[in-house]
């Protein structure tokens, strides 16, 4: 029994260390790997490629609707997706209608559009303009009813765009009534707005829908992929890195994925050590379940 006790207090001491050491270790590992900037190959999944192929099949002058329903707390995973999609649209001269149905989101969406236009200007010397290449409609409360409203006519929930310019005076919007005039909706979101786009956007108006969501939600939407209610999923930072690679501008997401390898390894090692300690000290589950 003695040998079991000595092993028990080794592990007990190991697990009783202050949790701040664990925090410090993780922080240090991430800081070092961010500085080291390692790059790993990003495998492309079917779910991400189907979105890229669809966007590639569009002709210049087609319309798509980019729904950015997230707020600053999840911009780490979702902003790279938005930037990559906007870059692809501006390059292929696809006209983009943009909405932001999260109350903390509009300011961030406007900033994202601005940086995408600036990047496009630096690349091609042409700066995409509001009302000609893209339209930003902004925010309205009660996303379910806004999604339904846009299915009937964009002008019901959005008489003006985010800068309070009437929709009918935007050249790009004449002849554009509702989802029938849009080739697809790409919903980049961190909230249940994705469920509402699936149920009220695709469910009622059958508009082709692709989603880019945080890692927390990504696995819950595979049933919709199989039924065809959505035609693609970008899952968390990995989805963002895949799309950045597909669009040809590896950026923050690709760099972030290499650091993820370090982060994930730490978590896996912790779980394994923890369980070794657990089985070593033979703490049977008290309820014998």
């Amino acid at each position: 029994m003695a040998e079991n006790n000595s092993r028990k207090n080794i592990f007990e001491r190991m697990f009783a260390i202050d949790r701040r050491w664990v925090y410090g270790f993780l922080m240090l590992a991430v800081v070092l790997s961010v500085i080291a900037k390692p790059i790993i190959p990003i495998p492309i999944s079917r779910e991400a490629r189907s979105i890229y192929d669809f966007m590639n099949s569009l002709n210049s002058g087609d319309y798509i609707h980019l729904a950015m329903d997230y707020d600053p707390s999840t911009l780490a995973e979702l902003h790279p997706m938005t930037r990559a999609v906007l870059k692809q649209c501006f390059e292929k001269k696809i006209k983009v209608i943009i909405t932001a149905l999260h109350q903390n989101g509009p300011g961030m969406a406007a900033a994202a559009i601005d940086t995408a236009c600036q990047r496009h200007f630096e690349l091609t010397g042409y700066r995409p303009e509001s009302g000609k290449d893209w339209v930003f409609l902004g925010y309205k409360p009660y996303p379910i009813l806004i999604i339904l409203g846009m299915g009937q006519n964009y002008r019901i929930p959005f008489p003006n765009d985010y800068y309070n310019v009437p929709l009918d005076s935007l050249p790009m919007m004449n002849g554009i009534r509702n989802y029938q005039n849009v080739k697809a909706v790409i919903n980049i979101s961190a909230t249940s707005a994705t469920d509402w786009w699936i149920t009220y956007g695709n469910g009622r108006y059958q508009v082709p829908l692709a989603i880019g969501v945080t890692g927390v939600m990504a696995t819950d939407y595979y049933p919709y992929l199989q039924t065809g209610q959505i035609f693609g999923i970008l899952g968390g930072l990995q989805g963002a890195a895949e799309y950045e690679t597909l669009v040809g501008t590896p950026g923050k997401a690709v760099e972030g994925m290499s650091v993820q390898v370090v982060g994930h390894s730490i978590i896996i090692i912790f779980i394994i050590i923890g369980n070794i300690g657990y089985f070593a000290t033979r703490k049977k589950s008290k309820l014998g379940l």
Partner: protein
Amino acid sequence: MDFGTAISNTVAALLTLCIFSFLYKDNPFYKFAEHLVVGVSAGYWVSILYINVVIPNIWQKLTAGKWWYVIPTILGVLMWTRIVKRWSWISRYPLAFYLGIVTGVAIPLEMQTKVLEQIFGTVQSFAALHNSSTDFWAGFNTVVVVIGIITSLVYFFFSKEHKGATGSVAKVGIWTLMIGFGASFGYTVMARISLLIERIQFLVNDWLPGLFG
């Protein structure tokens, strides 16, 4: 990097460090940053609602002579009676108006997209087995999926005792659910860590070079 951005980045970096300080222990810096963001985001809502709703959907509609937009505005103001205990029953009318619409709209569509569409999706996956392109593996996977669905549904079935046959079916069901939760666990870990990575990228790649650049 010009001077203005360095200043802004420093403010952002200091606030980031204030939040990280919570890891050490709950302290005044963390409390300051947290209460500040609660206030600023509430102020942000007020501005967004004013610019994005009050002006286009109320003010401009009324001034354009569409007087009937007064009705939803009154209903909206009635919502504020919730604050005063005595009058709070008045707020039931705007609430009833909104709830009636949202629940009515939800019933057919939630049933269609979350229940019927899923059942038919599984059935069609079997019908699709007969076209030429499906190989053995696709058939195998389709069978595993339908077994997983039926066993998981049996696990969440409460009208029959989980004994004998039902018991073992339910056991396979909970195992399938556990694999599903395992997948969510794996992706959630990635999600949480990517938030940390982005903040460190900001501090290391954007802020520090700006200071010493």
